[in-house]
């Protein structure tokens, strides 16, 4: 009797385990395309890419490539011989330190605006997501050296052939400096704000996906919470800081990480452009790869640091 029960129990247990295993197997089958792709295609590419940074590559006359082991030489070249790399790296990261908060805050703000009920909301939404679809790849390249738009923005109408005009800026630093000089606000802060305003097109273009993610986050907040807030007599300001902000904070983390990755790997990024330039010089292919890998390591470090700092403050409604 007891024996039977034990048998039954063990049978049951085994059956549950096998269902779990079956589900696990199904899971493996579902992720199989990625696994195969990663092992067969992606991993060899990554591996070769790292391997090549330790070689000098020169093309053979009959086609194909000559490899010569040089150890850390490419890295040494990038760090110590190339005069501009370290400088570009530092200034690029410094610039992004300003850009990324601007993009995250801007996209949160716009998402909240676009989430409100108003006339023409659908039209505005459609317009705001145009850059997500279109301002990439070819168009971004086209836009990055567009002298005609600079010419058309200019108010002086004099064509000096270059199409460059100083008045293409929306606000000039001088105006703002005059305005804020008496208020004793730091000069750097003023310059930063002016830079952000002048780069508004760039920032709008780069915050499309973030806006979508924030919008999705805002939609998932239960209206009942807002209703109870209203009944309790909270103002819109309080509601934002007590409800919207904590509820949206996971999205802020996601967006911060996405923005970092996106802007660090964008083609318009100064460091990426510099690496691109190096690629086209002699022996540049491998040196630029070495640079790119160092850059990549730095990006990972920054992502991990930011994610670590943010996730300490992120509020999750339910933990599972």
């Amino acid at each position, binding site marked *: 009797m007891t024996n039977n029960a034990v048998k039954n129990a063990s049978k049951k247990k085994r059956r549950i385990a096998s269902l779990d295993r079956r589900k696990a197997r199904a899971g493996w089958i579902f992720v199989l395309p990625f696994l195969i792709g990663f092992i067969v295609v992606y991993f060899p590419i990554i591996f070769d890419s790292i391997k090549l940074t330790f070689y000098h590559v020169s093309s053979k006359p009959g086609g194909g490539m000559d490899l010569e082991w040089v150890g850390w030489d490419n890295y040494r070249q990038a760090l110590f011989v190339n005069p501009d790399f370290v400088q570009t790296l530092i200034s690029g990261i410094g610039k992004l330190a300003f850009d990324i908060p601007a993009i995250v805050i801007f996209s949160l703000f716009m998402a909240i605006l676009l989430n409100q009920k108003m006339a023409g909301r659908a039209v505005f939404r459609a317009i705001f997501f145009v850059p997500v679809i279109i301002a990439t790849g070819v168009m971004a390249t086209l836009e990055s050296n567009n002298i*005609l738009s600079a010419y*058309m923005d200019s108010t002086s109408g004099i064509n000096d052939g*270059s199409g460059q005009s100083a008045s293409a800026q929306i606000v000039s630093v001088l105006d703002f400096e005059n305005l804020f000089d008496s208020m004793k606000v730091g000069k750097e802060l003023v310059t930063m704000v002016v830079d952000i305003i002048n780069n508004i097109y760039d920032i709008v273009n780069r915050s499309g996906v973030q806006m979508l993610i924030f919008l999705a986050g805002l939609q998932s907040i239960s209206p009942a919470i807002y209703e109870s807030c209203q009944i309790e007599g909270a103002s819109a300001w309080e509601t934002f800081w007590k409800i919207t902000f904590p509820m949206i904070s996971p999205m802020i983390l996601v967006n911060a990480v996405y923005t970092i990755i996106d802007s660090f790997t964008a083609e318009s990024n100064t460091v990426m452009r510099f690496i691109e330039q190096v690629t086209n010089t002699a022996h540049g292919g491998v040196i630029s790869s070495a640079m790119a890998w160092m850059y990549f390591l730095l990006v990972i470090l920054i992502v991990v640091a930011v994610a670590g700092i943010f996730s300490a403050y992120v509020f999750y409604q339910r933990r599972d």
Partner: protein
Amino acid sequence: MDAQNAVKQPKIKKETKNKIRVDFERTPLKERLKAKFGTTFFYQKLVVVIFRLVLLIGISYVILFPFISKIASSFMGMNDFVDPTVRLIAKDFSLDIYKAVFTELGYWEAFANTLEVSIICAILQTFTCCLVAYGFAKFKFRGNKLLFMLVMLTMIVPHPTMRLAMLQNFKDFDVLGIMDLLAKINILPDGFRYGIKLTETFWPLYILSAGAIAFKNGLYIFMLRQFFRGVPDELEESAYVDGSGVFRTFFTIIIPLSVPMMITVFLFAFSWQWTDNFYTELLLPTGRMTLFNDIISDIPLSLRTDYAGQGLFYQAIHNTAGMMVIAPLIIMYLFCQRYLVQGIERSGIVG
């Protein structure tokens, strides 16, 4: 206060036996208007609405102006670019640029090629990303987290890092050296020795798409995973209880559910492939096949000039070509943008 009392207690006169007359003391129109429009609440709201509208219109303008200016300059003739009085409206109206791009740069050939590669890549990417994301969202298996980290990794690695290695790998594409081995022992023909040459075909793009490791596929997988997580487990469990297998459940229940999200991903994949210039430039060098990035960087022969406004005119030609490249995308976007927001909204991405 008075007005309210008056409404509550209307004057009732008895006119005849069966008829009464009720006299409401209506608040005069002026006061009613004042109550509605004279309060600080109303002004606050008005200010907010106006501020919001101005801001949204302003930013919409910032987004749309490059397109407007590009379209405007595309209708200009050569003389307009040296005329300082011309801003947006062409004086010397001409369609030369359009004609030249259509006839001389092979627009339709590029269109057909790009359409082919974009549609196939987008379908492959949507499908495989769905599969992979579903696997990550609904099944717990060992290595789940690690694999997902790898997915994120593919998104983080900057593409130029892989430029040289990717070119090399696809030039002699080989599945982990297996083809080479098989050719060595004469199972495969000798042509497979050192792998097969895949550059200058679309195959590298298809392979990357099928493996869910193409451009930004990490983002799609992330989005879809969040979406599938929001689908209640009970739905699948009831299907399992009714005897449906994992795959049947996926194809008959989950896929129909996630059509808006899939359209979103398809839209992203399609348009990012459409405007892609990294992979196409790297793997499909100019000359073999006309693609859109050739169109954008070429100047039609009939329009080559040597006069003062050359720089601006050439830029206008590039811009026009660019607009023509994205015109199909814009048309598609107008039809699909509804799904874009819908799909994202329903995903309920939560941390």
